[in-house]
């Protein structure tokens, strides 16, 4: 019998201001005891809504408007909160992305466990302490940390504590909603690996929600793919990896590739999910689907058994009926894949031919950090040297805290180094005064990590783009306006007149990031610093932004410093890679050499941490 059974579930957000949004529509799923199930989809596809609905954690204005949820044979769809409360934590528990921030800041770790454990059992303090030690050890944290307060732990440690807390009462079912998103790649991997081991030992069931299909495929037994509030495909993880049948699943999988391959092609899915407050006809994916046929726009496909899984797609069904098994297509789906493709070949470029733009020589920066009465010195950057050259991308790769952002601040002149030289032609960036800095910014621009915070919500796109043109290029308003429209076209936002009038909230994440890029291009800079420009974007559109950056750098001869913790994207975009660890350069060289032949243990660790569902496959190649 299944532990959790969801049948024909509908969830609607009823807001006064806007028409109701049907975030989950007619979803059915079951999870057996001890099963590890993954749920993937783009942001906005309804993953969290579905997850929260299955454990009755929906908050207003979300409401279950149809269907049932049963747990352990009991219908909990309409159960009152007083009857649900005893089940929470004991039978069902959760970890969210923000769980690490919801630990009580004024209580030591041990006390938080004690409250939870003693609320549900009659354990003595001594027993509790023993259990806490056990739980912390389980998530790879030394038991001595139980006396610490949350703020004394790093983000990754806090998230582990949140996980241990969720598992404290040995629940039968755990909902994990983006449990590692926002953490460092290395930490992400460590947590998920540990979780999988514990889950096998204790045999609780898991629903792992993530937008990162790569890691979900690696850790789950079975994967559900969600699009626009519906499940469009369900398969065992191994089958999904080898032959995804739904075009959307193929599109999501297309954004992964092995960084070590000679030629890397990653795909993206142009377009965006539909507005769920409007009535629809036919397949909701049709406007973005490369396989779509006329039938798709008329009739919605049903989720039907296909092979060993379930798929909702007319074309996949027809292919299967015609005896065209995906197995026979072999791996070709990856190259003929869904959507647009960004391909990067290993071409031997001549690194000596390019003109040097910026030299960073033997730079060090020491920060003094004061905490209470203790002062600690942090060597944020330690004797780092590199050169940025025209038309080249240099990637700075490293974990969080490795000093990447500090280097960005030094290059742009926001911070001054303690020693070393930073020179832009004849200009010494490390010696610039206030006025000099302002002039220097004509030549150096930034692309930010979070496009939601990088655009002022109060201004239209056009007025945002006109400012640098007026300030740096001395253009009149009229000139600036026509140039701004050209820039919009350069970054692929057409028709530019239409986009120019919009405010940031009327744009998607990918479109916003294009505006941010257009703004950086406005003063025709010699250097662009891109600090994690794709890490806050959905996987389905990352390749699109990488392709845009790649094209611009080559065409306009810009020197780019690409800051990231993601080696795959570094490999895709960069000519050179510099690996940074604790402020020191541990490895540097041509991108393909560094990836193909990592020398330093730290680079190897980073490489292993990339979620890559195709590892086995590439190993077999």
């Amino acid at each position, binding site marked *: 019998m299944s532990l959790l059974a969801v049948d024909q579930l509908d969830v609607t*957000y009823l*807001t006064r*201001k806007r028409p109701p*949004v049907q*975030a989950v529509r007619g979803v059915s799923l079951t999870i057996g005891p001890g099963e590890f199930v993954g749920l993937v989809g783009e*942001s*906005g596809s*309804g*993953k*969290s*809504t579905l997850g929260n609905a299955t454990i009755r954690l929906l908050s207003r204005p979300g409401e279950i408007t149809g269907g049932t949820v049963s747990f352990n044979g009991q219908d909990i769809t309409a159960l009152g909160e007083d009857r649900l409360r005893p089940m929470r934590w004991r039978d069902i528990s959760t970890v969210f992305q923000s769980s690490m921030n919801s630990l009580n800041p004024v209580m030591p770790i041990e006390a938080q466990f004690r409250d939870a454990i003693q609320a549900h059992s009659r354990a003595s303090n001594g027993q509790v302490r023993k259990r806490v030690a056990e739980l912390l050890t389980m998530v790879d944290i030394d038991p001595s940390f139980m006396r610490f307060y949350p703020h004394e732990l790093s983000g990754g440690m806090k998230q582990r504590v949140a996980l241990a807390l969720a598992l404290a009462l040995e629940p039968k079912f755990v909902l994990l909603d983006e449990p590692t998103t926002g953490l460092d790649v290395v930490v992400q991997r460590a947590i998920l690996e540990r979780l999988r081991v514990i889950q096998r030992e204790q045999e609780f069931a898991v629903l792992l929600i993530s937008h990162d299909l790569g890691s979900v495929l690696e850790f789950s037994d079975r994967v559900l793919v969600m699009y626009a509030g519906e499940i469009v495909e369900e398969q065992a993880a191994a089958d999904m990896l080898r032959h995804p049948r739904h075009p959307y699943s193929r599109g999501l999988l297309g954004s992964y590739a092995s960084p070590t391959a000679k030629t890397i092609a990653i795909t993206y899915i142009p*377009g*965006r*999910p*539909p*507005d*769920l*407050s*409007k009535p629809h006809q036919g397949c909701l994916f049709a*406007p973005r689907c490369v396989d779509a046929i006329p039938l798709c726009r008329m009739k919605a496909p049903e989720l039907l058994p296909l092979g060993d899984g379930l798929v909702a797609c007319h074309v996949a069904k027809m292919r299967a009926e015609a005896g065209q098994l995906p197995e026979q297509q072999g791996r070709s789906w990856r190259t003929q894949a869904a959507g647009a493709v960004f391909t990067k070949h290993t071409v031997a470029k001549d690194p000596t031919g390019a003109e040097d733009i910026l030299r960073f020589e033997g730079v060090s920066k020491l920060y003094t950090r004061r905490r209470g009465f203790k002062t600690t010195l942090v060597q944020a950057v330690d004797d780092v040297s590199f050169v940025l050259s025209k038309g080249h991308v240099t990637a700075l790769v490293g974990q969080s805290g490795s000093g990447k952002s500090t280097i960005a601040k030094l290059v*742009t002149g926001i911070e001054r180094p303690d020693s070393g030289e930073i020179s832009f032609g004849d200009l010494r960036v490390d010696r610039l005064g206030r006025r000099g800095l*302002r002039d220097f*910014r*004509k030549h*150096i*621009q*930034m692309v*930010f*990590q*979070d496009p*939601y*915070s*990088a*655009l*002022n*919500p*109060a*201004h239209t796109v056009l007025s945002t783009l006109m*400012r*640098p043109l007026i*300030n*740096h290029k001395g253009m009149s308003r009229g000139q600036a306006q026509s140039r701004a429209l050209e820039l919009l076209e350069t970054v692929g936002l057409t028709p530019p007149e*239409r986009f120019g*009038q*919009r*405010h940031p*909230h*009327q*744009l*998607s994440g990918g479109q916003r990031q294009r505006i*941010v890029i257009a*703004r*950086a291009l*406005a*003063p025709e800079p010699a250097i662009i610093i891109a600090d994690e420009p794709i890490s806050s974007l959905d996987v389905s559109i990352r390749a699109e932004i990488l392709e845009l950056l790649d094209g611009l750098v080559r065409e306009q001869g810009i020197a780019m410093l690409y800051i990231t913790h993601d080696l795959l994207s570094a490999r895709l975009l960069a000519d050179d890679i510099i690996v940074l660890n604790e402020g020191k350069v541990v490895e540097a060289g041509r991108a393909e050499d560094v990836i193909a032949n990592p020398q330093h243990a730290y680079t190897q660790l980073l490489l292993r941490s990339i979620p890559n569902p195709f590892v086995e496959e590439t190993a077999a190649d």
Partner: protein
Amino acid sequence: MSMLQQGETPTVSDALPLDEEGAVEQQTRANRRFRVPGWLGILWENRKSRVGLVMLAIFLIVAVFAPLFSPHDPRSNDFAPNLDPGSGHLLGTTTKGEDIFSQLVYGARTSLIVGVVGGLLATAIALVIGLTAGYLGGTVNEVLTFFINLALVVPILPLIALLSAYAPGQGLWVVILIIGLTGWASGARLKKAQILTLRSRDYITAAVFAGEGLWQVIFREIMPNMISLVVVGFMGSAMGAIGAEAGLAFLGFGNPETISWGTMSYWANNQGALVTGQWAWLLAPGLALSFLIMALTLVNFGVDALGNPQLREE
């Protein structure tokens, strides 16, 4: 109302009519045509503050068109003294023979002038100090924060009374000035707190890279995102100013020649309205003041929505 669509849970916000180009265009065009300020729209959403806004509008109309609403000149003392309500005078007459209702109508004018001007003054000071402290940070912030905290702990009403007793001249404007100069502290603290959060946004760094100077960053990038907070601060200061003026006048610290609800109560009290049984004279100015304060309080109920950080940024 653009601001409502920002930063909600991703599941909902992605369902915006983004593909429906037409819808967005229409919306943008509509916004341009009507120009209803966003904060007013949000206040109107709330039932309580809608009632408050209507009440406020009535007071405003009465104050602006006072000559039309008052049957007599409020200063004329040609009438028989101590008349009861009715008798040709809606609320009766004072011991000096002035028409009480006319005074009440003109009193609205005084109160609103005090509220608007005093509120504006306090808001402007709060804005300058809050912006400077929050944006520049460092030593400037520490010094200004010291003054803000100092101003916060000083009891305001006695200070105002003291100042107005020694102030040169006795006019209403002196009172307004004093009220404005003393009532900025809490507003300044709120604004500083918000700027500290706004300052760390990437779009501020981006503006610096776009070549904007200090004042451009403050007025172009930060200010537009603080309109709601400024409106809220203004309401609070206006309310404080109106109350303070009335209180001062009632205690006899104001200029007794001004016609305001405070001076009316002062005279009513002074001339023994209680003894002569002229309830209307005694109660009317107090009631009018309570209604005005109530209107502002009701409006402030809707301010919760403005105070929500997700809605605050337009």
